[in-house]
């Protein structure tokens, strides 16, 4: 076991796989010489060479589409989008070609696209988004959102192993702030399985990514009120662990869905609708959602604070639910 930051865990996973399997290669803007905008691939080109750590032109469609072609030829490409926000440039390729190839013609597309996502550091509208809900809507893709270093490593390895296109949302704000124990050996975390981050009896919070920590802080405050909060970290948004969520709802009968992405059409809506549909008779309160408001991500810290769900927001929401 080693104590690694979230970022180090991601690097560790990538390095482990590249050492183990020659088919794995990395391609993206500034990933080679520069080591990646966030230094996830620092030292990689020295170790693996320029043809396995490829500095791509500023051309997301070519990057992601190129990965698809290479994957069809037996490689296991891992593309890095410099910011998750730029995935919109390759959106067409992902949903038109990559997502549909297996279903249409039987050809699997085992690619991974790493997406540094999320806000909290004045990144502004184009460097702070959480675009998972756009892709959660596309059959054929998978979307994972680890919150802990341990999950970050295991899920990236699973993503590389998975024969489907996997979008890997790594939350930038967790990169260096979060440390955790990470097994040194190679291991996988199953895609599609949630994790109980915190056990509780009175209210359930369903969340993922950086919001897991926001929820946790809020839960600690609620504990002092005598309210026991359970936190379910989805870890995968598509396919999401419905069974785990329903089980928790059956236990507590009160649920708050929390995500950093904006509210309308955010993935929380799917979760809330499913809970209402399948666990109606287990509900002791309406299903609540807390999410960012329906605006682009603002730049100025004052505004960003009003945009991102804060601990106080979650505390208030939980208190409201608990007292219902």
């Amino acid at each position, binding site marked *: 076991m080693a104590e690694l930051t979230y970022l180090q865990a991601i690097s560790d996973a990538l390095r482990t796989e590249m050492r183990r399997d020659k088919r794995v290669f990395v391609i993206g803007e500034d990933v080679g010489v520069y080591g990646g905008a966030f230094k996830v691939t620092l030292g990689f080109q020295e170790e693996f060479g320029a043809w396995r750590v490829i500095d791509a032109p500023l051309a997301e469609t070519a990057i992601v589409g190129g990965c698809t072609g290479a994957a069809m030829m037996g490689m296991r490409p891992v593309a890095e989008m410099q910011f998750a926000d730029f995935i919109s440039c390759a959106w067409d390729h992902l949903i038109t070609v990559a997502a549909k190839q297996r279903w249409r013609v039987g050809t699997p597309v085992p690619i991974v696209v790493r997406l540094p996502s999320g806000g909290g550091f004045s990144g502004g509208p184009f460097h702070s988004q959480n675009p998972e809900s756009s892709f959660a809507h596309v059959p054929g893709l998978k979307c994972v959102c680890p919150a802990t270093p341990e999950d970050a490593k295991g899920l990236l390895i699973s993503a590389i192993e998975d024969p489907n296109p996997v979008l890997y949302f790594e939350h930038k704000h967790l990169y260096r702030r979060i440390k955790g124990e990470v097994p040194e050996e190679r291991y996988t975390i199953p895609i599609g399985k949630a994790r109980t981050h915190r056990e509780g009896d009175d209210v359930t919070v369903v969340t993922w990514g950086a919001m897991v920590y926001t929820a946790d802080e809020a839960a600690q405050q609620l504990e002092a*009120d*005598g*309210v026991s909060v359970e936190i379910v970290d989805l870890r995968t948004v598509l396919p999401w662990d419905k069974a785990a969520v329903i089980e928790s709802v059956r236990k507590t*009968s009160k649920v708050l869905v929390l995500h950093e992405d904006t509210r309308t059409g955010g993935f929380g809506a799917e979760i809330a609708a499913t809970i209402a549909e399948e666990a*109606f*008779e*287990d*509900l*002791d*309160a309406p299903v609540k959602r807390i999410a960012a408001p329906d605006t682009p991500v603002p730049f100025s810290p004052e505004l960003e604070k009003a945009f991102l769900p804060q601990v106080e927001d979650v505390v208030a929401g939980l*208190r*409201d639910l*608990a*007292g*219902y």
Partner: protein
Amino acid sequence: MATDTGVDVVMPQMGVSVSEGTITKWLKREGEHVEADEPLLEISTDKVDTEVPSPASGTVTRILVQEGTTVDVGTPLALIGDSLAAPADEPTAPPEPEQAAAEQPAEPEPPVSPPASAEPVQEAVAPPPPSPAPPEPELPPVSPAPAEPTAAPESVNGKTFVSPVVARIASEHGVDPQTVPGTGRGGRVTKRDILDFIESGERALAAVPETPAPSPTLPPVSVTPPPASTAAPTPRVPQAAPPSSPAAPPAPSPAPAPVAAGGETLEPMSAMRRGIAEHMRRSLDTSAHVTSAIEVDMSKVVGIRAKLKSEYQSTYGVNPTYLAFIARAAVTTLGEYPYVNGEIRGDMIVTRGYVNLGIAVELADGKGLIVPVVRNAEGLNLLGMARAIADVAARARSKQLTPDDVAGGTFTITNPGGYGTFHGTPVISQPQAAILGTYALVKRPWVVTDELGEDVIAIRPIMNLTLTYDHRLVDGALAGRFLRPPPERLQTWGETDY
């Protein structure tokens, strides 16, 4: 049959408490022409005899109910075809509202407690005289009641709002959420509340009961249950509960804890006890409780029962209890008195074509009460009734009742007489309109007419029957009339009757 185009002539309601009317005379025959407003038939009701004017002009195409038949208010009596407009006026004919006031309004009855004190309570019963009395303008119960009927209140309005999970748990356990103390917003029952309630009830029921069932006396049955009626969260209480307060952390009792004075002992009320207390109070607050009583000479039944007993036991494995006989007689009579089997819902009166008979069952040392329901009791004969009662009683005691078993009761029979009491005034199980009490069979000196037509004293087994009824719906006269047939049936029970 012919097309239905035509105007219905229906039995009018001559006064609020009138539930039925009898056709005394048709003034027109089938095929005859009648003008709108022209008298069409004569009827007789509890309150008044009157003519019914035709709602339309046209031909009497069909007469549906014959002279001499008594039908419920609203029953179609005839069809008038080829009518020309004439929106029927309510035969709210004459100024015949009610003579409600004539009877004593319900006095607050002392809540009946189980077996204990059977005070020879004063009968706050109305004298029976049917009809006459000058009509007085009724207090309109029909007014836009502040009572919101169904529809759950806009927001969480206290007790009346039941969340899905609470509704489900209530249904699964046969608990009426209305009886559960609530700590949620606005006093609503939360999941925790109902689970606690059930748990404490289960602890109470843990010590299971003795008496399987029938003994020569009536099954030990107790009074006034906190019945589990339909799980549907229809507000029973016309008044709104106190508005919700902003969410506070769920704290149980806000009231300051009572203190024991010297010589006193304090024990906490169990959740079940609290539930019972709440329901009793609410029932008395809701219904206008009045009790009428009548005595029954059970000698015939005693004899028949003795004859049937061994046959029933050996062939059917069931005891033909006195309760079965009484239930049979009562259910049959209910068919003729729908209001006694009815319900006030908002400002509507609900009547049914069926009787779901609640049988109050006491559980273990007065720790619990439950009222399982025999559904469609009107379709049961004596044997069927005996079986059904035995079955629900047994299952009640062994905690094997299903949610359906405790829901939907329309009338209840209770027996406080198992301990020897000869009279009582049970509390009505909401939202029903009445509850029949049966009491100890007591040998009394009784005046009978001998074969020479002379009055002599005989020793007869006499049982008192009470009907506690909601005077909002059932008047004393009606109650009195209802109470006549059952004793008659019991007193003339034939060997071949069933």
